[in-house]
Structures are given as structure tokens and as C-alpha cells.
């Protein structure tokens, strides 16, 4: 299956292209010609709400993903304040500690081919966790990012039962010293936010940044609805698979080389 591509020539698209042109021109002044490091096509001002004109996604090339490399995991922990390096959840047993992103190593049962990939919330278009949540705390933003509204999460864990990827964690004890942009606390459920605080201010998720810094370039982040975005181009040219495609959840995270 291919990514959703928005071919409609809406006024916004035109606007976006004009804007892109101008920004690119501005960026071109600062950088060597043709070297635009990050996509800036979606720039929206702080008072504008996220829009369904975007759909944020990740594309992971498992062939480029470094075996034994955990840069994305560490970056996520540093950014969002979970895991051992933050001494978060000292009382919880290993199986009770939060895991937002994890590295998994796989071996094909037939061919013996070994590969390695990061696994996190897949930011589904039809997220089972959102369907089952009794209060509406588990929610999907207009731009496709799936989040937990911890203000109204009652800690029933039904979303964790429903998630096909085991992407969610329940917080088993009181926490301290959370990151200001990543509030998290006892008795509620949490998962990968696609670094929504960065996305809202035109940034790139910490995991993608770390993967690039490591030189692997195995992760793309971008707008699946923008047919010119790097992620869309890459998907169009080389494809990308969903995990549990049979469930027809239309995930926002895609994998190559599975």
C-alpha cells in the first residue's frame, strides 16, 4: 500500500508552495544552493491549530538501521525524560517501566535474514486505542499525531489492551522532575508523541535527529499529505510497509526492507 497523497490543487497547496518557494529562497541565502536541511513547508504560527492538511509520518529504512545502535532510543529518553538515564520510575520492575520506543532485532523464519528496527507508536489513522478509550483521553490530532490527554485519562489501560504494537506504557509510581514539554505522571498511560512539541514549532522528532546525527539516515520525518516532502517522495519511489497491515489501520509510521 502506498501513502495517502493529496493531489488536489487546493488554494492552501498553492499557498504552501509559494511559501515554500520564499522560504527556500531565504534559506538559500544562508546555505549552499540546493542544501535545504529540514523541511519547512508546514510553517504555521503558534496561535494556529494543527490542521488536517498535514499528516505527520515517519519512514524507517530497516536496511540502514544500525544493528546494536540505540541512538533513537537514548535521544527519546533524553528528550522526553523517561527511562534509566533519567532515573525515572525507580520502584517499578523492568516490565513496569515506561517504554516509548524500543529497538527490536528480527530474524526471518524462512531465510534467516536478520534486521533491526525501532518500534514505537505507529500513529494510526484509525487508532484502536482511540476507539476503545472510555473518556476520549486517547485522541488523534487533526494532523494525525496520536496522543494521550493525561488530564482526562483515568488509567483504565483499555488502550493498552487494544494497541497491536504494545506501544503504550502505564506509569506505576509517582514521578518527579518531568520535562516541561513532556508532562507524565502516575496512574496515566503514555506513548510516543512524535515529539509533538517539536513538530508544533517546526522541529523534527528527537529520534530522527539522532539517527541522522549518527550517520545512519534510517529515519525520515515529514508530511505524508505533501507530495513534495522527502518522506512522500521516498515512499513513492521505494515503497513502505505498515506493521499489521491486515488490520487496515493506515499507520503513520512505515517501514522499508521488512
Amino acid at each position, binding site marked *: 500500500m502506498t501513502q495517502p497523497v493529496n493531489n488536489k490543487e487546493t488554494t492552501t497547496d498553492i499557498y504552501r508552495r509559494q511559501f515554500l518557494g520564499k522560504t527556500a529562497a531565504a534559506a538559500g541565502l544562508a546555505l549552499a544552493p540546493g542544501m535545504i536541511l529540514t523541511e519547512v513547508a508546514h510553517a504555521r504560527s503558534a496561535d494556529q491549530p494543527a490542521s488536517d492538511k498535514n499528516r505527520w509520518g515517519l519512514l524507517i529504512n530497516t536496511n540502514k538501521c544500525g544493528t546494536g545502535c540505540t541512538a533513537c532510543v537514548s535521544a527519546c529518553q533524553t528528550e522526553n525524560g523517561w527511562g534509566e538515564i533519567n532515573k525515572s520510575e525507580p520502584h517499578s520492575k523492568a516490565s*513496569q517501566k515506561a517504554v516509548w520506543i524500543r529497538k527490536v532485532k528480527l530474524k526471518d523464519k524462512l531465510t534467516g535474514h536478520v534486521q533491526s528496527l525501532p*518500534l514505537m507508536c505507529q500513529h494510526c489513522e484509525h487508532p*484502536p486505542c482511540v476507539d476503545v478509550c472510555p473518556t476520549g483521553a486517547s485522541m488523534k490530532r487533526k494532523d494525525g499525531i496520536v496522543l494521550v490527554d493525561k488530564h482526562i485519562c483515568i488509567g*483504565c489501560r483499555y488502550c493498552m489492551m487494544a494497541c497491536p504494537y504494545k506501544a503504550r506504557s502505564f506509569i506505576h509510581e509517582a514521578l518527579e522532575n518531568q520535562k516541561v514539554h513532556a508532562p507524565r505522571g502516575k496512574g496515566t498511560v503514555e506513548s510516543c508523541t512524535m515529539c509533538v512539541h517539536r513538530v508544533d514549532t517546526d522541529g523534527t522528532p528527537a529520534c530522527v535527529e539522532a539517527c541522522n546525527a549518527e550517520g545512519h539516515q534510517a529515519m525520515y520525518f515529514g508530511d505524508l499529505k505533501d507530495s513534495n516532502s522527502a518522506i512522500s517522495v521516498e515512499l513513492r519511489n521505494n515503497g513502505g510497509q505498515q506493521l499489521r497491515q491486515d488490520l487496515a489501520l493506515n499507520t503513520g509510521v512505515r517501514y522499508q526492507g521488512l
Partner: protein
Amino acid sequence: MKKTIPFLAIEGRSSGYYMLLAILATFILASLGAFYYMEHHGHYVTGMSNQIVWGMPHVFAVFLIVAASGILNVASISSAFNKKAYKPLARLSALAAVALLAGGLMILVLDLGRPERLVIAMTYYNLKSIFAWNMLLYNGFFAIVIVYLWTMMQRNLGKYTRVAGTAAFLWRLALTTGTGSIFGFLVARQGYDAAIMAPMFVIMSFSFGLAIYILVLMASYNWTERPLGDAIFNRLKNLLGVFVAAVLYFVAVYHLTNLYEAQHHDFEMFILRDGGIYTQLFWLGQVLIGGVIPLIIFYTPALAKSRGLVGFGALLVILGGLAQVYGIIIGGQAFPMTIFPGKEVIETTFADGAIASYVPTLAETLLGLGGFAVALFLIAFCVKIMQFLPASLADKDVDPHYKAS
């Protein structure tokens, strides 16, 4: 003309009665203590984890909620299906339904990560959530059954009993279907993704509810020294036998369907053969203790003559039922989800592809038992303050034409 049997509140002044209340109260206090302990520290003091997210409290809660709707059956048979012989049993049946549901819900609420936010659960509804439907179904069940009880207990409202009883019967079917669907709609997990879950839960409710009803009836008539004749008792016993057999039938269909589908083979092998504790719970707990042995007791005339043995059989049905619910809830989670079909997970930091372990702690078990205690306490207390129990269920009072076979 046949005289009607009067309903009488039990005297409830014996030391035995107070002892019963005291024991139940102790369990309730222990469960509240467990709740405080779990909420104060957080769920790290339980055996539940990010792999097994629902544990012992949910086993007890689901069992009680399922049994609550099932125990109303006795009343439904009298009101919705107009069987006269069940009339005297209807009040206790409706009371027990409310009590069991209250006990089950108490556990669910006290196990929440944020129980103080119950008001949010009541005010924010995601109408696509089966959990949210269930909250409406539970509250509606309380309301309808209480109205139904009212029509039975207030003399001049008797003409509405049939309507209220039928409404309650339909509502309870919806309720158990909803409870079963909590699991049946979870497409991601191999053990759950099956529409048969909903009807299976309905038939489980018939069985668990009636087993509890028979035990409550036996206890209250023994301890108050009121007569309980064979006419009623054997009817209930035979009916329970039918329900127990029906549960076994549904379980067989569920597993046979799974065995036919290649993608569910691994899960079936896990439950039926290789699952260790879950395999034992299935064959020994659910099938043998909760199914085969009770059926032998109920349908072997020599054994069924003994009230004690039949009561023991009903107790086995309850234990087998708990084993079944444990297998469904915990076993269904312990079995790893297939995220990468055709691949083997050789390294992970989150137990992908591995069978999750779960060891319940004392606290969560006490919380679960507290739900039972709350239900039984409510029943014991209410039969003293109001007229729920017929003065006599002797054969001559219930059915003058009954002949012992």
C-alpha cells in the same frame, strides 16, 4: 385457590448472622486497605505491568459483572417468561444482581490508575468505546433492576412487574454482550479477536450467576431454618447442569474455530498444550473442575440426592468460572502479539514475542475478594431489612402437585 407464600425478612439476630457480617466486613476492610496501598504507592506494588495490564482485580470484576447479569435469570424466568414456580425466587435474584454488579464495579473503579477521576469517567464519554457503552449499561442495569424490584415489592405495582422484568431481561442480555465485547472487539490480540466472545459471555453469565444463586439460597434457608423443597431445588440444579454443558459447548466451538485457522494455531497450542499454568487452568480448572465434575454430580441420581454435593458442585462451577475468566484475561495477554508475521524476535527490550509472566500480589487479590464480600454483605444485610425471602420454599407451598421422583 392456591395461597401465595408470604415474604418475610430474616430475623438476623443470631450470633451466626453477626459473625457472617463481621467476616464479610473484614474482607471489605482488607480490600479497602489494599486499595489504599495500591493507590498510595502506585501500581508497582502489584504484579500487573506493561505486558499484563489487566490482572487479578479484573478477573474478579469481570466474573462478578458477568455473574450479576446471570443471577437475574431466575427472576427473568418468573417475570419475562411467566413461570409461576420461580415467582418466589425472583426478589432474591434481582437483589443479588444489583449486589454482584456493585461488587464488581467497586473492584474496577478501585483499580483505576486515577480512581479520584471517576467523575471524569461519568462526564466525558467517548461513544465509540465499548467501555463507555458498558458504563451506560451498568448504570441502566442498576436503575432498571431497582424499578423491577420495586414493582415486585409494592403491592399495587404488581401489574407492571412483567414489563419491568422483560425490560431487565433484555437489558441484561445487552450488558453481558457488552462485557464480552470488551474482549471480542480487541482485534489485535489472538486470544480475543472473536465475535463468539459475546454470546459465550452470555452463556457463562447464566452458569456463574445460577451457581452463586443456588449457594446463596441454600445458605439463607439452612441458616434461617426455613424449608427448601426438592421441587425448587432440583429445578435449579438441573437448569445449572444445562448451563454448564452449554458453556462447555461454546468453549469447544471457540477453540475448534481457532484450531481451524492457521493464524491462531500458536495461540491454541499455548492454551491447550504448552501454556503451563494457563493450560492447567484450562483443562483442570475450567473443563474438569468447572464442567465435568459438576455435570457428573448434577446428573448422577445417587449423587444429586445429596444437597451438600450439589452445593459443592455449584462451588466448583464458580471456581471453574474464575479459572476460565483468568485464562481469558491473563492468558490472552500473556500470549505474545504477532507484530512481525513470519519473523522471529531475537532481541528486544520490551519482551516482544515472549510469553509474559504474571504473579499476582496479595493486595490485588484482596481487592478482588473484596468485591465478592461487598456483594454478599449487601445481600445478607438487605434480606434482614426488607422482605426478599419467602417464608417457605417447601414443596407443598411452591407446587402442590409436585411428586418426588
